[in-house]
C-alpha cells in the first residue's frame, strides 16, 4: 500500500462518507421499484461505487462497505453492529434510504 501522509493521525469523516454513499444509492436505485431479478446487481453496484468514491478521497484507511436492500412488505428488520478498533482514528457511518417499494441500508 502506498504512503499517504506525513505521519499525522487522521480520523474518519462520517459526514463526507455519508454524502458519497447517498449519491451512489440515488444514482443506482433512485426512482426504481423493488425487482427481485435486479436486486443482486444493485447491491453489488452500490458497494462497489461507494467503495470507489471512498478510496478516491485518498485517506489512509481500509474500508468495509455493507449494503442491504429489503422489499417493503411489512416484515420487521433489525440490524446492529459492534466494533473493536481504535476510537481515535476509526469510525463508521450508516445511511438509510427508502422509496415506495424498498429500503436500502448502507
Amino acid at each position: 500500500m502506498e504512503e499517504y501522509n506525513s505521519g499525522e493521525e487522521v480520523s474518519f469523516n462520517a459526514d463526507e462518507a455519508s454524502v458519497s454513499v447517498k449519491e451512489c444509492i440515488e444514482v443506482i436505485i433512485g426512482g426504481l421499484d423493488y425487482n427481485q431479478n435486479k436486486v443482486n446487481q444493485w447491491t453489488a453496484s452500490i458497494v462497489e461505487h461507494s467503495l470507489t468514491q471512498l478510496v478516491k478521497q485518498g485517506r489512509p484507511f481500509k474500508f468495509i462497505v455493507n449494503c442491504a436492500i429489503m422489499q417493503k412488505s411489512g416484515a420487521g428488520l433489525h440490524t446492529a453492529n459492534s466494533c473493536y478498533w481504535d476510537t481515535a482514528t476509526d469510525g463508521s457511518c450508516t445511511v438509510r434510504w427508502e422509496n415506495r417499494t424498498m429500503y436500502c441500508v448502507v
Partner: protein
Amino acid sequence: RYCCSPATITVLHAFVFVSCQTAFVVDEVSTIIKESVEGAIGGNAYQHSRVNQWTTNVVEQSLSQLSKLGKPFKYIVTCVIMQKNGAGLQTASSCFWDNTTDGSCTVRWENKSMYCIVSVFGLAI
C-alpha cells in the same frame, strides 16, 4: 549444490508459526459466531419487542469472544435479524483492505420465524 543453512531453516519455521497465530481464521470465527447466535436467540420466535436486545446481544457476545482470541486484529461485527414473511432481502459488502492479512466471514442462521445473518470483518493491525 544448494543447501539451506540451519539459520535459514529456523527463520522459516518462525515465520509459519507467527502467521498461524495472527491470521484471520474463518472456521474459528464462524464457530464463535454460531455459538453467540444460538446463545442469544436459539429456540425463540420472532418478537418485535425483543429483537433490539437480541441483535445487541449477538454482536456484543461475538465481539467479546473474538477479542479473547488475543490476535492483533480490529473487528467489525454486524447482525441482521429479519422476520420470515416473504419479503426479499439482499445484502452485499465490499472491502478495501490488505488481502494477505485481512478477512471476513458471514454466518446465516434461521429458525421457523426469523433469519439471522452475522458478518465479521477482521483487519490486521
